């Protein structure tokens, strides 16, 4: 067994925590795990990534290009920046919510929708939701990372199921934030289960139009 996950985002979005959660879940499931995380200078509002490699054998922590089974993009451009790591039959879970870089970087206008389109063109199994909005609805935008992990587990894109993932979260998230994270977790699960089941998805859309 070999399962490589790349988590990408912007400093402060909780990439490191997300990778710790996955790594812990992997150990609990009896695998070896190796992670590589961005720490230090680059974290200050820069692009951050974490490589999480789960498998039967000990290996280096950096995923070779074209080997990732899953990319979790907490930010659309950051997912796209790392797409060369994705394997031919890999999947993407991407947050539609963009973090616009400070204007001083002299970037051309950043249109997140175009980036999402690019991801979908290149990866059949791309799940895109505004997870930041979803987390806000659950109580805080800071739970975005948790919502995204739940989505990946709920859509069967991880080598462990949502309950296994939650039992790790329960241990790692401080008690006062637990309920809030559970809420984000459940809302996200619900959302992806709707996406997997076309009928349900329609209902979700109809409801959305009602409100």
């Amino acid at each position, binding site marked *: 067994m070999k399962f490589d996950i790349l988590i990408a985002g912007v400093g402060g979005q909780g990439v490191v925590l997300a990778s710790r959660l996955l790594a812990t879940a992997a150990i609990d499931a009896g695998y070896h795990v190796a992670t*590589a995380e961005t720490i230090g200078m680059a974290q200050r509002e820069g692009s951050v990534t974490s490589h999480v490699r789960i498998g039967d054998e000990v290996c280096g922590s950096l995923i070779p290009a074209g080997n990732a089974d899953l990319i979790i993009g907490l930010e659309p451009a950051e997912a796209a920046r790392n797409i060369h790591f994705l394997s031919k039959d890999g999947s993407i879970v991407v947050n539609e919510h963009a973090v616009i870089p400070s204007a001083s*970087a002299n970037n051309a206008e950043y249109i997140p929708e175009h980036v999402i389109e690019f991801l979908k063109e290149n990866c059949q199994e791309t799940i895109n939701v505004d997870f930041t909005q979803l987390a806000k609805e659950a109580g805080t935008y800071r739970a975005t990372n948790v919502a995204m992990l739940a989505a990946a587990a709920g859509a069967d894109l991880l080598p462990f199921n949502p309950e296994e993932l939650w039992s790790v979260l329960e241990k790692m998230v401080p008690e006062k934030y637990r309920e809030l994270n559970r809420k984000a977790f459940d809302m996200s699960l619900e959302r992806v289960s709707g996406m997997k089941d076309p009928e349900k998805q329609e209902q979700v859309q109809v409801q959305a139009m009602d409100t």
Partner: protein
Amino acid sequence: MILTSKRILMGNEAIAFGAMKAGLQVASGYPGTPSTEVMETIASHASKYGIYAEWATNEKVALETAVGAAYSGANTLVTMKQVGLNVASDPLMSLSYIGVKGSLVILVSDDPGPHSSQTEQDTRAFGHFSNIPVLDPSTPQEAYDMAKLAFRLSHEMEIPVILRTTTRVSHGCADVVTEDIEPAGRDIEGYVKEPRWTIFPKLTAQRHPWLEDLQIRISDRFSDHFSENTFNSISKGNSKIGIASSGVSSLYTNEATNKQTGTFSHFKLATVHPFPEKAALEFLSDITDLIVIEELDPYLEEQFLQLIGRHHLDVNVYGKKNGHFPVSGEYDVDVVIEGVNSSLQSMNAEVPLLTHSTPVVARENIPSLPVRPPTFCAGCMHRTVFYAFKKAAAKLKKENGKGTVFSGDIGCYTLGNAQPLNMVDTCLCMGAGISMAAGLSHTQQYQEGNYAKQVAFIGDSTFFHSGIAAMISAVYNNADITLAVLDNRTTAMTGHQPHPGIGLTAMGNPTKAIDIAEVLRSCGVDLVETIEADDLGKCIETAKMAIEYEGPSAVVFKGKCVGITKATGQYVIDEEKCTGCNFCVSQLGCPAIFSMSSGIPQIQDNCTGCSLCAQVCPSDAIDLREVLQ
């Protein structure tokens, strides 16, 4: 019975646990990415296991502290990053002659890439230079096990031992099997007076042959004790091609060649200095071509080349020196595949080339994406201070035509170089901002009064690390400089360690807080001001006054690091009042504000409510939207 458990640990945490298992008693260090978490982990377990742990003011002090404790027979550890080892190199070079009692392990983290460093130094070369053994683990598990080996070796040989890691080992997490630690047997012999502990030329002359001889003995030991946990290993392949690698490159090598296992012989070196010559000779005996895979310097490559030359062996070597592998930057599996293939091609080997996986989109085909250069956090006090100096300098330029040179330093505030602030004209190493500003002030152009005023920036932790001596030298030598101390009450870049200005030790005990302004006064700085960094107008005024002052002056700006304090509020742009001048965006570079094609900028969730943008907005269009609890 030894109880073991398996858990997820960062390489740095694994080293801390390994050291504690080995009977660590005294630990000292200075924070530096990627080494920091070793000391943090020890400090947080120190009282439980009866260990003394501290953050020293710099690496030289840290090493000397550990040396003192080791002379008394204690098991000691010092931690630092590769550039920190430069600071500690003075005691280190002498120490290798004298050796230690107890044990002394020097944890040094290298940073190929580099991700967070001024240089891509290779500590293996430093081991060679200083005649100190270097162990080079490839995984967090090995880091744990080799930490224990390092203590054993140090104790047995009475020498310091360097445990060297690289970013992917220090900051990678993995499942690590650790053993229970018993807080027992903390007794030490105590310091015994002996001429051996006082270095004099005579002693040096006596010890040098011992030191050289020791290198050979250790090299033999690293060669001979193959099975006894030196972590060196050789696997035989069925071609005449061999690969030698060390550290995390060994793992990349395994993965790069795993579709062709059995082809190459592989010598994985974990004890890199002194080079295990006998083992290497044995390895070379049945190969004709050797590919050397290592990050940073061609250290192993040089060792092999020497050995091959000395023994007139008929082995071709492929590595950095003949262009098959990159001489800088971090390696990964793809880099290794490229290098091996390039070597195979050049040796015309009858071995198939290694293959890369095919990504869905090749890196070259990713459309252009917004770049995110690192910058101060939203609401960071440093932004306000740099902007204030920028404004003050512009005013002075208008008034008297004199320019200002801004000397930066190492820490979060190095990011003052980011656009649009662009406030770092020089940056070299810890503390250098002050000394370089002083040097600049003594140039003739400046003395004739027609060039520029000199301003140096330094952070609170860096001030204690190497700012004080530099400031004393500047005052003593009549340098006309202005020092801005950016005191955000923490060592922010490395993860918020306490320092002498805080009043708290590494182990969380209260202690005397050293007042930076008082230190500056007693260093002879005549004008010393302390102000809060939240009022921009006052910051500009004070900055201007300090620059205009003839002679050394200093301002201590007190503020907070948003990395450890809560956001106080969030601001919002009033679309009615905003004229779309974009001043808030173009002047400050706060990552919470971005400009819209519609003309009205927007403030994102990460606003912490510092109010700087509201203070610079010429149309009074930025208001507090919400006060956060």
